[in-house]
């Protein structure tokens, strides 16, 4: 079909159909939000600046978190090699023996694994992903001037920052940072006698994450209120882009699940410092009996995973929303099954509260209760599969632009399929008895959550970079970054399935006492080498990102991707309030691509002559 380009004069549309909310009358000469350096770049209340703050802080943490994994991978891949060369950085955590061979201290290995998980899950994939894109896109895509409460929004970022500072300081504690795993199970996490990381490191970990939850809640309250209250005229819920839907539902899950984690932490803190025994009972340690009786460590696991499982969807839903938007825009086709997509997001969100105990099949929980969780866990695969089907159908027959954003969105779908399938294995309690706490689980969640969410984030960054900085990122470097990361990620995590099937347990410092596992030494070395290469490949991304901020190709038109959503009707570098004059009004859903012979019809375009809208 020959596609015409509708001649869209969005200036004219905004003027004639836009809605005058008298916004600019309030801010006469001087914009109070951006009047000096501090209020513009540091304590900014502008959602676009806060989005950038979340993004760059998230990138900082991503580098730290990934670097930690490189260090513990060296231990796993090359346990015999000396690590003395890294002693200047790690100090006493490298123990040098009489022969001059340096090894990673065992406690520090656990600390690294713990910090890696905590940092990537919370600081990078929750704050860095959802914080960045919810802030950037919610107001822009629903036609709002800013968030419902710019002040709370700013506080949300600064609580995240504070959480980060505390976590960072904990890395320098003389007893080491928390080292009981990112899940911080008691009794290990309660008793400093049990592990040096359970001392001050654990205290700082708890304080930091409590501030982090405050940040998530403040952000979430804002996202929900903004979506419900500040949509522009014509922007009904069923006309919202899938990005906004996913951020909205993510915020709801966060508000329902993070408070439960706080309660779990509250009891943990009481056990640590007030002498209560919520999680402790009849413990012998260093030959001494503690007088704590009556508690149950399983209780913590319930509270933790009631957050923990929804948390994995808090991470993946924004990536899903971003990928849906990118896939549709760059295949010039409406998203396949828009309503089914929304309903799937909502049902995944609902079901995510009913499956938490699939992380606890081996905790000694009643096996009949396990049945309930097996069933709901398997049901959650249904809406997940619906989404996958719709993404593939969206691609099918499209006029695909294979740019970096699109590649990452496709990569996201690939990763989500590969990792989702192994989830179905794990969801069967009978199989999980064998697989639990092996590298099979590590492979599962790194592919489905870690890599997939990173890919969604990269897709978002490459796609919306022009909106954030008024310039493009370099495409050649972008593609190099994509293919290298894609291949690297599969080479790192795919082999872990085999390790797991053979029973290799996760979180072990070394396997030298298990003869059966020595056959995997070369595989482990291979994984480590690829991990190091993939880590250093990210320099390409970071260099591309920062170089393009200042020297990238300039964006010359408002709508470089010929996209339908409202953010592309703002000026190339929107100021405070996003639209200089009227705010746009909306006349259609966001996915009118290749419709009635037109390549794209933006949401601000009123019905054309003889056109039927809302046919989806």
């Amino acid at each position, binding site marked *: 079909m020959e596609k015409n380009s509708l001649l869209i004069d969005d200036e004219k549309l905004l003027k004639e159909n836009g809605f005058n909310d008298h916004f600019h009358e309030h801010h006469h000469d001087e914009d109070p939000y951006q009047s000096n350096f501090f209020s513009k770049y540091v304590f900014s209340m502008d959602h676009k600046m806060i989005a950038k703050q979340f993004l760059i802080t998230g990138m900082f943490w991503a580098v730290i978190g990934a670097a930690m994994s490189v260090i513990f991978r060296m231990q796993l891949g090359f346990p015999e090699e000396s690590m003395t060369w890294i002693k200047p950085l790690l100090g006493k955590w490298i123990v040098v023996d009489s022969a001059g061979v340096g090894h990673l201290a065992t406690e520090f290995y656990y600390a690294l694994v713990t910090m890696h998980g905590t940092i990537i899950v919370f600081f990078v994939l929750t704050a860095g992903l959802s914080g960045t894109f919810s802030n950037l896109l919610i107001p822009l895509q629903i036609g709002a001037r800013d968030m419902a409460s710019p002040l709370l929004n700013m506080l949300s970022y600064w609580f995240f920052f504070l959480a980060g500072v505390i976590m960072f300081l904990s890395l320098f504690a003389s007893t080491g940072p928390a080292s009981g795993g990112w899940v911080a199970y008691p009794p290990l996490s309660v008793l400093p006698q049990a592990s040096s990381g359970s001392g001050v490191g654990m205290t700082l970990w708890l304080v930091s994450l409590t501030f982090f939850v405050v940040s998530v809640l403040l952000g979430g*309250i804002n996202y929900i209120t903004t979506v419900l209250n500040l949509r522009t005229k014509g922007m009904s819920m069923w006309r919202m882009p899938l990005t906004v839907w996913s951020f909205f539902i993510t915020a709801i899950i966060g508000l329902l699940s993070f408070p439960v984690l706080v309660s779990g932490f509250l*009891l943990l803190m*009481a056990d640590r410092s007030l*002498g209560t025994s919520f999680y402790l009972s009849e413990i012998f340690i260093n030959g001494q009996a503690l007088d704590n*009786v009556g508690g*149950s460590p399983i209780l913590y696991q319930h509270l933790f995973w009631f957050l923990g499982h929804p948390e994995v969807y808090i991470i993946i839903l924004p990536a899903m929303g971003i990928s849906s938007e990118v896939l549709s825009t760059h295949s010039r086709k409406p998203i396949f099954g828009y309503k089914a997509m929304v309903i799937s997001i909502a049902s995944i969100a609902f079901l995510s509260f009913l499956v938490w105990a699939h992380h606890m099949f081996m905790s000694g929980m009643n096996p009949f209760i396990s049945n309930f969780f097996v069933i709901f866990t398997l049901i959650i695969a249904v809406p997940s599969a619906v989404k996958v089907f719709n993404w593939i159908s969206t691609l099918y027959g499209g006029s695909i632009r294979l740019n970096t954003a699109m590649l990452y969105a496709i990569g996201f779908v690939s990763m989500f399929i590969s990792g989702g399938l192994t989830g179905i294995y794990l969801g069967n309690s009978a199989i999980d008895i064998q697989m639990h706490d092996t590298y099979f689980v590590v492979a599962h969640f790194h592919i489905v959550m870690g890599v997939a969410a990173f890919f969604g984030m990269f897709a978002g960054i490459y796609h919306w970079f022009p909106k954030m900085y008024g310039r493009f990122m370099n495409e050649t470097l972008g593609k190099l970054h994509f293919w290298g990361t894609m291949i690297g990620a599969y080479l790192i995590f795919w082999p872990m399935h085999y390790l797991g099937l053979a029973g290799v347990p996760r979180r072990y410092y070394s396997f030298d006492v298990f003869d059966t596992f020595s056959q995997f030494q070369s595989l482990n070395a291979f994984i480590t080498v690829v991990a190091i290469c993939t880590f250093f490949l990210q320099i390409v991304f970071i260099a591309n990102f920062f170089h393009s901020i200042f020297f990238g190709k300039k964006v010359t038109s408002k709508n470089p991707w010929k996209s339908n959503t409202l953010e592309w009707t703002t000026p190339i570098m929107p100021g405070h309030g996003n639209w200089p004059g009227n705010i746009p009004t909306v006349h259609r859903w966001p996915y009118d691509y290749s419709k009635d012979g037109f390549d794209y019809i933006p949401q601000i375009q009123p019905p054309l002559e003889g056109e039927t809208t809302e046919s989806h």
Partner: protein
Amino acid sequence: MATVHKDRIDYRNKIHPHKLALWVALGSILMMFVALTSAYVVKRAAGNWLDFDLPKIFYYNTFVILLSSVFLQMSYKGFLKGKEYVYKYMLVAAFIMGLAFVVLQYKGWLALHSIGIELSGNPSGSFIYVISGFHALHVLGGIVALILALVFAFKLPYKPTYRRKNRFELVLHYWHFIGFLWVYLLLFLFTQ
């Protein structure tokens, strides 16, 4: 299309965004307590549990916090109807009852202590301390909000503007929520 604008977001405000934000936040607070009470149920089912009767003072105290809610509601009605004295002095009454609630909760903890239930004893007792203590913390937050409301009431000239009504409603809703949260917690502990 709106012709008068009270503030920049008036064109869609079925509910004022700050109020909606408060309700959403109350949902989160509720989830914290739902988690604690669920933990209570799970722990009790796991055994090694010590049963005892809750000191009576916790029951009496329920009236104190509910009465405080009633006073605040009357103050709000006075504010709307232009009865400045009702507005101001009912606000004071609500504040005093709020303080009394916290003091009486403290007495409740002392009463627990006197029947040998310690914070660091069997979790059945620790739960009471932690749940009521965490609730009291939220009451203290409400008291801070009441102090702000008092400052507004006594320092500013009386003027029932849209903004002040809205601000008052935020305090009002939070305070009612805290009161009913206590009723929920007490009924929960009573029926368990």
